């Protein structure tokens, strides 16, 4: 006689099986609930992706993903972190080449939304550092994520928010889109970065001091204006601290 654990594993394998499995009495409802519920979780976490492909298409995709990668833990707040990468390999991603990157942005948004709180940088103390700030290491808010795409995924995202009007998005933009996704306070911010600001923040995020990060930014964008960019970033409160080595 099988143990309870064996029965549970058999049930799981049957629920997640794709085809060719013999019917299991009275189990169809569990399969429908499991797949339907987890697909709904993905639809909630990826609302723009859902909207872009439509309900029927999304549910089909989501259920296929659930079978490919079922949840590893009971809380489902973060379920679907692997969904964008998986989506990239699907047929629909060939038809909508920006789709997987939009999903990546939504995964970053969800990460930022649920990330740890942190107090913003004390800007007054920063100003007193003087030129020593060149060697200072700047800490980015723990909720931050960078998203880079050849497509203007932030515009696609905004155009597909429930309160967005009938905006259209031009996909033929010049160069890559660099985004900082961060939640300094209650709202998740999507901040579009120029190549210089992107290089600066990537360097600061990697723990390089401001002087080196500035060099990186200037290397990519000779016209990079540090004062202007820092003003915007400080106002958005994307930093939580500076440390002298």
């Amino acid at each position, binding site marked *: 006689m099988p143990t309870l654990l064996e029965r549970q594993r058999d049930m799981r394998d049957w629920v997640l099986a794709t*085809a060719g499995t013999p019917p299991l009495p009275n189990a169809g409802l569990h399969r*429908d*609930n*499991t*797949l*339907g*519920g987890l697909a*709904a979780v993905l639809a*909630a976490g990826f*609302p723009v992706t*859902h*909207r872009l*492909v*439509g309900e*029927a*298409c999304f*549910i*089909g995709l989501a*259920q*296929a993903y659930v079978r490919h990668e079922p*949840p590893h833990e*009971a809380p*489902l*707040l973060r379920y679907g972190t692997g969904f964008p990468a998986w989506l990239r390999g*699907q*047929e*629909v991603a*060939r*038809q909508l*080449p*920006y789709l997987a990157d939009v999903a990546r942005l939504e995964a970053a948004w969800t990460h930022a939304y649920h990330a740890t709180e942190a107090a913003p940088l004390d800007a*007054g103390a*920063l*100003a007193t*550092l003087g*030129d*020593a*700030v*060149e060697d200072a290491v700047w800490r980015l808010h723990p909720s931050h994520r960078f998203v880079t795409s*050849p497509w203007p995924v932030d515009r*696609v995202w905004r*155009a*597909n928010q429930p309160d967005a009007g009938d*905006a259209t998005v*031009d*996909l033929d933009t010049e160069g890559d889109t660099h985004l900082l996704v961060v939640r*300094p*306070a*209650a709202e998740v911010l999507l901040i579009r970065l120029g190549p210089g600001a992107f290089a600066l923040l990537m360097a600061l995020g990697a723990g390089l001091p401001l*002087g080196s990060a500035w060099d990186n930014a200037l290397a990519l964008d000779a016209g990079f204006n*540090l*004062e202007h960019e*820092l*003003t*915007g970033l*400080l*106002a958005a*409160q994307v930093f939580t601290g500076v440390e*002298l*080595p």
Partner: protein
Amino acid sequence: MQTTTVSRRLGLGLIVATAVAGATLAAAPAKAADMEKCYGVVKAGHNDCKTDSNSCAGHATKDRDPGAFIAVPAGTCAKISGGSTEPAKK
């Protein structure tokens, strides 16, 4: 703490100080203390109500239907101009 003896870029401190001044003039975003995150109700669906075992979940609408994700996407793609048919870039 190690003190910097030579600053390669005199004026960096001034740049940062100016940026700080500019940033404080800008409208401050809502403080986290003003609003609290209420898990499960703030953002529709961003909750863990639907576990893989309870029955508040719906039913699979397209069970075992591989055609569902090859079918024509019906959504807001039409609003996005500039090629939703071919991966023109990269």
